[in-house]
Structure formats: structure tokens, C-alpha cells
């Protein structure tokens, strides 16, 4: 690692008040987005990207990273206060956090969630800072077959993020790959599936597609259900946990941060799985496992340290291999591309002036998150109480602005609206949106490297298994797909059993 560049980046980010300001804005926006049920960190990052177009790349990117960290933490606020996870990654926090809230200890639970998130996030960010350059050095040896194998491995994640039906997840993924076919073919320059439209020559632009998938679709669902959903009010008393309480959960926080970072670094897992695994492990290794679920601090600290640890972990494969760790990092990967940087092995080597400040920005974001989280808790609790009838139109408007601002194009707004309507129906019929996002990111990488490899090998597909790194990625990809398949199958069987028991 180039320590001098790292130190320079830290001084550049930490000592510059402008950078601090953007991290502050990102973290605060993230906490608000995360705390509002129905809004995810993915959507938040997607909506913030248009605001970064004219900023210095480093400033824009650290603001987005701040939103990512804040968003994952913010989910715990609504989970504890109203029993609804603001983001999926806070679902495990409900188990003990909401129970504490019911006992009148919501403030203490949020205080612990903030400290654990800070600890986990800082741990994950440090691991990211020191591991990413080493991994990128190995990845520099990659050629087209290795990149194809890597993208294949990345697409294998589709099975993991397919939800209840792997088949439907795969259909969504292939649909996403088909969308990437629209526009100029990058290898031959031939326009494909444009039907004579000049606007489609450049393809379906990433940001409008993203806002359609995760912005409009959620807005449409919100509008559909707006008059039937009950309004939930939140309350908040007592905030900071005592020192002996922090000491009692410290071991759990360390273990959960480690688990979270490791899980986050495995593409396709994400913060929600990290939170549940950390919670499960804390419960398994506890002297009093029966107390979990009744409202104890350990049950809040474990998932929060885990899911925030996963934020740093998820950044590692995105920055070094060009394979996003989860949906949010897929969006961040798109943001890097928009700012002119191609995530992958060459990113750290070619653009250390951008990557190292991102590392520094992520660490700074944890400290800002701690300050903003503890200081602004009552404000965030109030935000949760804002009526959906006000918030939904505002988010609708931000979707319009976000899809317009990329190319100042009303055509993009139209494309985004259409994708939003498709995503709305897909959601009802069990087709997940995340595989489309992954396919939009990895599609060009898959196609170009597949075709280049086959041209190099004169059409012999054995090129992918005769080169060791490529073969390793393909084997790991198949292994991940098979294990994910059985994991989902097992989870579905468990769910069916639970439903049938409830019906009896």
C-alpha cells in the first residue's frame, strides 16, 4: 500500500471543511432516508447522484458514501421507534430494539444502535482501506476470460438476491441484460434494438433506469396504498447508554463487526444478511440466549455493528474487482462510472487520488454519523412522523428531477416512468428488481469479455476453464449459486411450515 498517498488523502479529506460539509450532508440525508420506512439506502443514493454531477468527483463520491453509511444506520431508528425497519438491513434490529422501545427504553436502544453502527462501520472501513489495494494488485493480472468469469461470478449473485423465486430472479436478470443490448454495440459500433430512435443510440441510461426501478416503483406503491396504511407515531426518551452497558456489549460488537465486514465482502450477501448472521451468532454464543428477543442491548448492538461493518466490506469487491457487493454498492459503482472512473483492478492504480479519499471519506462518515446520530436523534424521530401525503409527492418530484438531470432530457424522464411502471407490476408478481440492477451494471462487462475471449480462442470455450483465475471464479460462482439455491429453498420450506402452523 502506498502509505504516503493514503496519509495525503486523509489530510485532504479530514482537514478540508468543504469535504466535511459534503459528508455531513450525505450522512444526514442517509439517516433521514434510512429512517423513513419504504425508502431504502439504494433509492437514496440513486436520488442523490444527480446532485453530484457538477461537484468535484471526490466530494460527490464521499457524499454518496456518507449517504450509504447513514442510510444503513438510519434504518435502526424507525425499527426501534415504530417497529418498522427503515431499511431491510434493520429488520434484525426490531427483534430487541422494538421490545426495548415498548419498555420505554427507545432512547437507550437508539443510543446503543448508534455506537454499535459507528464501531462496526469504522471497523469495516479500516478493513476496506487496508485490504482493497492488496486485492486490486492480484486483480491486475486479469485478461478478458478472467473478467468474463468475474462477471459470471457476479451474476451468480442474482440467485442470492432473487427473493422467494430463483426462476423469477433469473428472468429479471436476463431482462436486465437485454436492456443493456439497446444502443451502440461497443465492439462493432452497430446500433442494436434502437428502432430508429436517436435517443436510444446511447442505450438506456443507468440513472433513469435505476430511479425507475427503485424510485418510481416505490412511489407508485406508496400512492396506491396511501389512504389505507395507518399512520404510526414515534416517541423518544433517555438517549446515551451508560459506560458499563457499553462494556458489556463490547465483545459482541467486535465479533459482529468482523462477521459483518466479512459477509459484506462476499458479493451478493449485503447488510441485511450480515445483520441477521451477527444477531444469530451473538445469540448462539451468549450465556443468556433466552433473553434475546425480549429487549436487551446486546440484541441491538449485534445487528447494528454487523450491518454497518458490511458497508465497508461491500465496497471491497466493488472497488477492486468491479463486482458490487450488494444493491447499494451497485448504484455507487454506477456513480463512479458517471464521474468517469471505471471500478475494477485498475481503479486504485490509475486513480489513487480518488480512491484513497473515498477510504478516508468513509472513515470520516462514521464519526459524522456518530455525532449527527446522537445529536439529531429527536429531529430524526420527528421526521418519521411527517405525513406520507407530503413525503410521497416530494419523492415523486425528486424522481422526476433525478431522471431529468443526467442529460437534461425529458426522454429519460419518460423512460424512467415506463421502467417504474414495469417495476411496480414486477413487484406484485414476484419478479425482484435487484437482479435487473446487477445485470445493468455487469451486462456490458459480460458481453464484451465473452466475445473478446471467444475471438482470442477462435471460438473455443475451454479458454474459461484452462486459465486458473478464470476457472477459480467460475467454480466459486457455481458453488455460490448452488449453496444460495439450497439456502433459499430451506428458508422457503421453513416459511411454508410457519404459515401452515399459523393457519392450524
Amino acid at each position, binding site marked *: 500500500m502506498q502509505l504516503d498517498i493514503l496519509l495525503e488523502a486523509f489530510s485532504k479529506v479530514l482537514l478540508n471543511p468543504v469535504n466535511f460539509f459534503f459528508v455531513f450532508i450525505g450522512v444526514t440525508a442517509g439517516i433521514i432516508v434510512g429512517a423513513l420506512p419504504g425508502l431504502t439506502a439504494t433509492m437514496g443514493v440513486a436520488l442523490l447522484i*444527480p*446532485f453530484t*454531477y*457538477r*461537484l468535484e468527483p471526490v466530494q460527490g463520491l464521499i457524499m454518496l458514501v456518507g449517504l450509504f453509511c447513514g442510510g444503513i444506520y438510519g434504518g435502526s431508528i424507525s425499527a426501534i421507534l415504530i417497529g418498522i425497519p427503515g431499511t431491510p438491513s434493520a429488520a434484525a434490529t426490531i427483534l430487541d430494539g422494538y421490545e426495548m422501545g415498548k419498555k420505554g427504553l427507545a432512547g437507550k436502544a437508539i443510543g446503543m444502535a448508534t455506537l454499535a453502527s459507528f464501531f462496526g462501520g469504522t471497523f469495516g472501513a479500516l478493513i476496506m482501506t487496508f485490504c482493497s489495494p492488496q486485492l486490486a494488485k492480484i486483480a491486475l493480472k486479469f485478461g478478458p476470460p478472467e473478467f468474463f468469469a468475474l462477471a459470471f461470478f457476479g451474476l451468480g449473485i442474482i440467485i442470492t438476491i432473487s427473493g*422467494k*423465486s430463483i*426462476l*423469477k430472479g*433469473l*428472468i429479471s436478470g*436476463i*431482462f436486465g*441484460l*437485454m436492456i443493456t*443490448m439497446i444502443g451502440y*454495440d461497443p*465492439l*462493432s459500433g*452497430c446500433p*442494436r*434494438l434502437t428502432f430508429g430512435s436517436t435517443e436510444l443510440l446511447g442505450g438506456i441510461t443507468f440513472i433513469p433506469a435505476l430511479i425507475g426501478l427503485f424510485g418510481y416503483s416505490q412511489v*407508485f406503491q406508496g*400512492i*396506491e*396504498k*396511501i*389512504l*389505507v396504511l395507518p399512520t404510526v407515531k414515534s416517541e423518544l426518551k433517555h438517549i446515551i447508554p451508560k459506560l458499563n452497558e457499553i462494556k458489556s456489549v463490547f465483545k459482541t460488537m467486535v465479533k459482529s463487526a468482523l462477521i459483518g465486514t466479512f459477509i459484506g465482502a462476499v458479493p451478493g450477501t449485503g447488510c441485511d444478511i450480515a445483520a441477521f448472521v451477527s444477531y444469530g451468532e451473538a445469540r448462539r454464543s451468549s450465556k443468556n440466549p433466552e433473553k434475546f428477543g425480549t429487549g436487551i442491548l446486546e440484541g441491538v448492538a449485534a445487528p447494528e455493528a454487523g450491518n454497518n461493518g458490511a458497508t465497508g466490506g461491500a465496497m471491497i469487491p466493488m472497488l477492486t474487482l468491479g463486482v458490487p457487493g450488494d444493491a447499494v454498492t451497485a448504484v455507487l459503482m454506477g456513480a463512479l462510472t458517471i464521474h468517469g472512473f471505471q471500478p475494477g483492478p485498475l481503479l486504485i492504480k490509475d486513480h489513487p487520488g480518488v480512491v484513497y479519499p473515498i477510504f478516508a471519506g468513509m472513515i470520516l462518515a462514521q464519526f459524522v454519523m456518530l455525532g449527527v446520530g446522537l445529536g439529531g436523534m429527536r429531529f430524526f424521530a420527528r421526521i418519521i412522523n411527517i*405525513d406520507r*401525503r*407530503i413525503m*410521497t*409527492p*416530494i419523492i*415523486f*418530484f*425528486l424522481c*422526476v*428531477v433525478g431522471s431529468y*438531470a443526467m442529460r*437534461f432530457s*425529458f426522454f429519460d*424522464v419518460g423512460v424512467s*416512468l415506463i421502467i417504474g*411502471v414495469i417495476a*411496480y407490476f414486477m413487484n*406484485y*408478481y*414476484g419478479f425482484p428488481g435487484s437482479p435487473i440492477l446487477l445485470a445493468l451494471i455487469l451486462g456490458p462487462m459480460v*458481453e464484451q469479455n*465473452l*466475445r473478446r475471449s*471467444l*475471438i482470442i480462442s477462435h*471460438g473455443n470455450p475451454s479458454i474459461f476453464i484452462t486459465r486458473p483465475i478464470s476457472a477459480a471464479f467460475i467454480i466459486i460462482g457455481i458453488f455460490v449459486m448452488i449453496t444460495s439455491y439450497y439456502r433459499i429453498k430451506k428458508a422457503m420450506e421453513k416459511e411454508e411450515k410457519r404459515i401452515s402452523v399459523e393457519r392450524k
Partner: protein
Amino acid sequence: MKKADIGVGIGLLFLCIWIFWYVGRYRPVEVYFYGPDFFPRVLSVVMMILGLALILNALAGNSLKKTETIDPRGFIRMLISIGICIGYLFLMKILGFASATFIFLFILMSFLKQRGIIIRILSSLITSIVVWTIFKYFLIIPLPEGVFF
């Protein structure tokens, strides 16, 4: 979801057959075999297999049970809100970004039955002015300008 799965599966089969045929026109004559038509055709074939699997899965009774249904009134509300949005896009070109945004937000909030005219006016006004200011003066991103601003 049996009917929906069968419908989607049939739709996918037709779509992919059409794409497979349509991309044939991109086939290069001499350059190389793996031309612009190669990958779309591979994807079409994979999608056809998946579409067929979806149909067979549904016929075998393995479709997932619906957990949520579309509320017809809510669906109409959603369609009307899309209509309001399209109107907003046209209005933006005539009136300008900030004023059209204010009208859009106010109408949508009123349509969604937000109580209190003062709250509706203030939240619409503040949102439109704040975002307009950020884009115009801070980010220097050109926004549609009409009769007003």
C-alpha cells in the same frame, strides 16, 4: 399467481422469438462470428428456456401464492398521479421549473388528501424553491425556463 405466470411465460416466449429473429439483421458477413447479434441471441435462447420453465412450473402448481393484491382504487389513484406527472412535464416547458413544480406538488398533495391548505402551500413552495436554488445556483445545472422561472 398461476395465470399471471403462464401469461408472463407466453409473453416472454413470443418476445424472445421476435428478438432472436430481429437481431439477425445485425449479423456481420465477414468480420467475425461473434458479432452484434451473438449475445442478444444467446440471451433470447436463455430467456425462452426460463419462460418455458415458468409456464411448466405454473402448470405443475408450483407458483408462489400472492401475498399482496393490487387495490383497484389505489391503482386508479396511481394512474391519475402519473397523468398529473405528465401534465407537470408539459407545464414545466411553459411556466418554468420552479413554478410548475409548485403546482405539481400542490395538486398531488391535494389529490392524496393532505389536510391543511397552508401546509400544502408551504411544503410545495419550500421544496420547489430549495431544489430550484440548489440546481440553478449551486450545481449550475440548466433547468427548463418558461414564462416565469
